[in-house]
């Protein structure tokens, strides 16, 4: 390429040096931030980076950029923020097509006009992009089967590492033509492709939402009640457990079991009445309106690394639902805990970097896992932040090698340092 054509390519990509507002990755900043205004410009840019062997980290709103291993190389951020907007939305089809860089809140507002929504609750929803949420596979606290990114991504347009434009899946709610590459890209954290446009399934807004907080002095009693609930009522939309350190800031007390029921009015209130009959909590409060919104908002933002101090470790545990409360109770001795037992997810934070090893060990003892979502660089350099190597890692490595043979997409950042 001539110098002139490189210059025009970089101009098309809105290339610029990073500024103070661009987040670093564990102290590393890229040389260039690329923010192409079209899928075509993004393709040309990526193709150039591929030829030059430049390491590219695809990103959207950069809200989850901190999650991952230390990059083995870092030259550019390739951001989707100028690929933004709803492309087509037909409420009657229960589908929406949207550019990958669309801020999640913007999409949600568009869907609200059709009395529909995407059942995700990401932190920083005004900045988090749809593509970024899909790539991170991190929709927030709502994880019921049928509501996760893997369930709702119907199809995508993306760029491969060499800039080749590809598509998979489609725009309809049911489709088995070709391999399920949508599943492969969800949660691949920018290591396989750069999403440019996606087709999603949407849901009708629930007729009723009920929030209930039940306080317990003893976490064991809470765990026992949780088991009875599981046997007696259909799974609520969200089940969260907050330890006393977390609830103190929410004008609640003790260990709190927070339940969110959604659906048609009779069903939500019927499930709630049944749950109420089973709970042996010290106090049960039904939260309404702004009070309920505030609790869910605060929970959504826990444990935001931005709210923590330097050197803080944020750790996510993964277990079977039946083990979640046991792990939460163990972890609580090291830091504040929020658990989503039905999804088998437990969040905690600790100021002791060495504490991560104990958290990981206790999770592994329960056949679970612990992910170091954020932590000091010195700690991250010693561990695979994704914890235990997953089953099928050999196949994962081969897929990465096949799709990104020059290893330019987020090199070193994924599971097993892929």
């Amino acid at each position, binding site marked *: 390429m001539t110098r002139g054509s490189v210059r025009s390519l970089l101009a098309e990509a809105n290339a610029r040096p990073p500024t103070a507002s661009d987040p670093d990755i564990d102290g590393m900043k890229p040389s260039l931030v690329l923010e192409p205004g079209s899928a075509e410009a993004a393709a040309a840019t990526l193709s150039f980076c591929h030829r030059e062997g430049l390491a590219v980290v695809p990103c959207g709103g950069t809200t989850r950029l901190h999650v991952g291993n230390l990059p083995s190389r870092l030259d550019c951020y390739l951001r989707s923020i100028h690929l933004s907007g709803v492309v087509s939305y037909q409420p009657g089809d229960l589908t929406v097509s949207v550019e990958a860089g669309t801020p999640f809140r913007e999409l949600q507002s568009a869907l609200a006009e059709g009395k529909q929504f995407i059942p995700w609750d990401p932190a920083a929803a005004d900045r988090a992009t749809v593509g970024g949420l899909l790539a991170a596979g991190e929709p927030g606290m709502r994880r019921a089967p049928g509501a996760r990114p893997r369930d709702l991504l119907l199809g995508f347009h993306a760029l491969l590492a060499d800039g080749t434009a590809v598509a998979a899946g489609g725009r309809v709610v049911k*489709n088995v033509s070709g391999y399920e590459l949508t599943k492969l890209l969800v949660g691949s954290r920018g290591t396989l492709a750069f999403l440019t446009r996606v087709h999603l399934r949407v849901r009708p807004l629930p007729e009723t939402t009920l929030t209930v907080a039940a306080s317990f002095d003893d976490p064991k009693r809470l765990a026992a009640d949780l088991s009875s609930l599981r046997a007696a009522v259909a799974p609520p939309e969200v089940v969260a457990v907050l330890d006393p350190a977390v609830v103190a800031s929410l004008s609640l007390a003790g260990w709190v079991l927070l339940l969110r029921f959604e659906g*048609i009015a009779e069903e939500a209130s019927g499930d709630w009445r049944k749950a109420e009959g089973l709970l042996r909590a010290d106090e049960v409060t039904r939260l309404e309106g702004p009070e309920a919104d505030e609790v869910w908002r605060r929970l959504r933002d826990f444990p935001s690394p931005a709210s923590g101090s330097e050197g803080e470790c944020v750790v996510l545990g993964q277990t079977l639902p039946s083990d979640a409360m046991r792990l939460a109770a163990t972890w609580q001795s090291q830091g504040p805990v929020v658990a989503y037992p039905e999804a088998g997810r437990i969040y905690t934070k600790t100021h002791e970097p060495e504490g991560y090893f104990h958290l990981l060990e206790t999770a592994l003892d329960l056949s679970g896992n612990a992910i170091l979502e954020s932590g000091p660089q010195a700690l991250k350099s010693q561990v695979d932040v994704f914890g235990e190597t997953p089953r099928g890692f050999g196949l994962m490595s081969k897929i990465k090698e096949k799709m990104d043979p020059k290893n330019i997409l987020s090199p070193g950042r994924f599971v097993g340092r892929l």
Partner: protein
Amino acid sequence: MLERKVLGKLEEVVGPQGLLVRPEHVLVYECDGTTAFKSPPEAVVLPRSTEDVSRVVRICADAKIPFVGRGAGTGLSGGAIPSEGGVVVAMNRMNRILSVDPINRTARVETGIVNLEISRGVAEHGLFFAPDPSSQSSCTVGGNIAENAGGPHCFKYGATTAHILSLTVVLPNGEIVDLGERRETVGYDLVGLFIGSEGTFGIATAADVRLLPLPEAVKTCLATFPSMVEACEAVSDIVALGIIPAAVEMMDRATIEVVEAGASAGGFPKDAEAVLLVEFDGAPAGLDRLEKEVDGICRRRGAVAFVAARDAREREKLWKGRKAAFGAMGRLSTDLYVQDGVVPRTRLPEVLAKVDEIGRKHGIRVANVFHAGDGNLHPCISYDGRDESEKQRVLAAGKEILELCVSVGGAITGEHGVGTEKSNYMSLSFSESDLDLMRSIREVWNPDGLCNPGKVFPTRQGCGEAGLPSMVSGGGAWI
């Protein structure tokens, strides 16, 4: 012919009772539910364990013999047909529920188990396995995994992929790998990628499946309409209510006539142009209100009758009739071509009208029975496969229908898979780059291409032109 030495090795693994080679024994394995595509295997092996499957696959891989895993053979895309000189690995003897964990709502099963047997086996815990293809009383969960099978209730509960947590897979080189966990995990979603790979990535031998609590109550309603268009409009209004029914199914007059004449008659009104089967599940109090609302919607859209099943027996009868529709088509002619295109649901009325036009243009009769909530069509074309000109007209009409589905933003298959039948139509939906990416992923799993070759991808000569699939003559019914 397979070498005697290879047959000897296979017999060592599965024993003489587990190896079929005589033509009359392997004949039933020459096709799946799509009897228009046939190719008899050289041998059929019936393993009893994952290790057996691994050893069999290793023998095939060493001898460069193509092989394909097979469940009950109820597939509707020619996905389980062996390639010439190939071995069928029939999973039917691996049909146990290995364990049930009612607290975490999961079960570990061997993949040769029949779909419905899972729900029967876990019913005592108040749980069920949600994927419910029409063939659920005979199809296996391994086949469901291969095809990412759907069914009427996947409108609410999602297709097979939403209900499989982990897999044990024998890779095409014989290696045994476990993928996924019962808990949430990290890394690429290999379980999600494997499901729907149509037997081209390996053979799944065991799975942890997700179970759901049995709904407290179920309400199944039948609405009778004077036209398909009005029935489709009612579906739109029901969806706009803001609730997701458990299922929304539609049948046209031609289908109703055939079903009602058969052994599994559902009690559908024979003079109706269209009937809509709408099911809700959940808390009883809410269901009564929904019934009233849907009754009102249907009547406003011109329904001449609206009834709800009074008890489980009536409900089962309706579903038996609906699920027997493909089989009942066997009354009409020797052969049946069932299509599986999907369209955005709001385009259903115009697409159905055009499907009718296409049928008339080619002088064939199309019966419609489909998942209206999903926009997943199943145009059924009965024909006599011995009449070459009729067969060609059927295939030409089929191609036009799929082109129509894609042209309105739809897809060529919603739940039956691409298999052999639609492989040359993949180019309607995907570019060469898209297909190359899929091929490269297949190479990761199946580098020698011995595991279920000839499926999913267009043959190179058919590529781009989306040629008609080649079919054998005198097929029999595609049910």
